[in-house]
C-alpha cells in the first residue's frame, strides 16, 4: 500500500501530511501518557510495534496472483488505540523509505494516513463495537485486524484515485481497488489469524496490562466465567 516516492503530486503530499501530522503529534502525547501512567505496558507497546515491523516486511503471494504485504496495524489499534499506532507506523514507514526505497518521504503523510490512521481506526471501531455487544474476544480481534488491513489498502486506492482520476474518479477507483484491495483479501484473513494468535499470547501472559488498558474485562469477572469450566474438566 506504499505510494512510491514521486508518485503523488506535491499538492496531495502536502494535503495528506496536513491531515496526518496532528494525529501523529497527539499520538506522541498519548504514548508519553500511557508510558507514565502504566509503565508495565511499555513492553507490550514494543511487541505491538515489532509485530508491525515483521508483518509489513513480508510480501506474501495472494490467490489473485499478485504479492502484497500485510500491515500489522490492527493489534496495536485494539490495545493502545489508533493514534498510538500512527506513531509506530511512522517508524516503520521511515525505515522502509530510507533503507528499502519502498514508499517515500514525500508520500509519508499519505502512507501514514492509510496504514497509521484509517486502518487502525477501523480496527478500533470494530473491536469497541464488538466489546460493547459483549461477544467473545478473539473473533472480535480477528475482524478488527481483517478490516484494518483491508481498509489500509482501500484508503491507498482512494488516495491514488483522488490524485489520478483517469479518466474519471469512478473508473480510477475501480482500477486501483483491483490492484490493491482485491489482492489484499486473502492476506487480510491471514493477518487476522496471526493477530489472534499473538493477542492470545499477550492475553495469557500479561492479562493485567490488557485489563488496565481496558482491552479486556477485569480478571474477577473473567475468572467467574472461566473457573467453573476448568473445574468441570
Amino acid at each position, binding site marked *: *500500500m*506504499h*505510494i*512510491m*516516492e*514521486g*508518485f503523488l503530486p*506535491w499538492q496531495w503530499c502536502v494535503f495528506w501530511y496536513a491531515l496526518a501530522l496532528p494525529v501523529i503529534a497527539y499520538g506522541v502525547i498519548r504514548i508519553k501518557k500511557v508510558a507514565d501512567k502504566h509503565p508495565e505496558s511499555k*513492553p*507490550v507497546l*514494543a*511487541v505491538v*510495534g*515489532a*509485530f*508491525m*515491523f*515483521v*508483518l*509489513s*516486511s*513480508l*510480501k506474501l*503471494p495472494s*490467490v489473485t*496472483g*499478485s*504479492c*502484497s504485504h500485510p500491515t500489522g496495524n490492527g493489534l496495536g489499534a485494539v490495545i493502545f488505540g489508533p493514534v498510538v499506532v500512527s506513531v509506530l507506523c511512522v517508524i516503520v514507514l521511515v525505515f*522502509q*523509505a*530510507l*533503507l*528499502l*526505497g519502498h514508499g*517515500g*518521504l514525500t508520500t509519508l503523510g499519505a502512507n501514514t494516513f492509510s496504514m497509521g490512521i484509517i486502518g487502525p481506526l477501523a480496527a478500533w471501531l470494530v473491536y469497541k463495537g464488538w466489546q460493547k455487544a459483549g461477544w467473545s474476544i478473539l473473533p472480535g480481534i480477528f475482524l478488527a485486524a481483517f478490516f484494518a488491513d483491508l481498509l489500509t489498502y482501500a484508503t*491507498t486506492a482512494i488516495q*491514488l484515485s483522488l490524485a*489520478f482520476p*483517469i479518466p474519471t474518479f469512478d473508473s480510477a477507483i475501480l*482500477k*486501483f481497488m483491483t*490492484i*490493491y484491495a482485491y*489482492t*489484499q483479501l*486473502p*492476506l487480510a*484473513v*491471514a493477518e487476522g*489469524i*496471526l493477530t*489472534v*494468535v*499473538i493477542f*492470545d*499470547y499477550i492475553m495469557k*501472559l*500479561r492479562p493485567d496490562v490488557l485489563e488496565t488498558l481496558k482491552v479486556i474485562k477485569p480478571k474477577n469477572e473473567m475468572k467467574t466465567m472461566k473457573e467453573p469450566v476448568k473445574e468441570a474438566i
Partner: protein
Amino acid sequence: MDKKNIILLCLAAAIILSPLILYNGLTEEEGYFTGSDGQGPEYLESQGYEPWIEPIWSPPSGEVEVLFFSLQAAIGALIIGYFVGYYNGLAKGRRQDEMDKKTVKQAK
C-alpha cells in the same frame, strides 16, 4: 504451545501457500507474483505520468533489498520473541513460587 494456535498458524500458512500451488510454474514473466505496490506505479507510468522526485537512496540490487527486508523482519521477531519468552519465564516462576508455598503449608 496451544493446540488452537497451532491449528490457526497452519490455516494462515495454507492461505499463504495455496497461491504457490495454484499458480505453480508461472513466474513474474507471465505477470504472476509481482508486488501490488509496484503495479500501481507501473499503471501510472503507462498512463504517461512521470514521478517528480526520486528516492534519496534505493537498494542497488535485489540482494541488498532482501537484506534490509530480512533485517526488518529480524528486528521485529527478536523483540517479540524476547518479551514473549521473558513473560513466559516470569509466569513459570510465579507458578513455581505458588507450588512451593503450597508444599511448605502442607508440610506445616
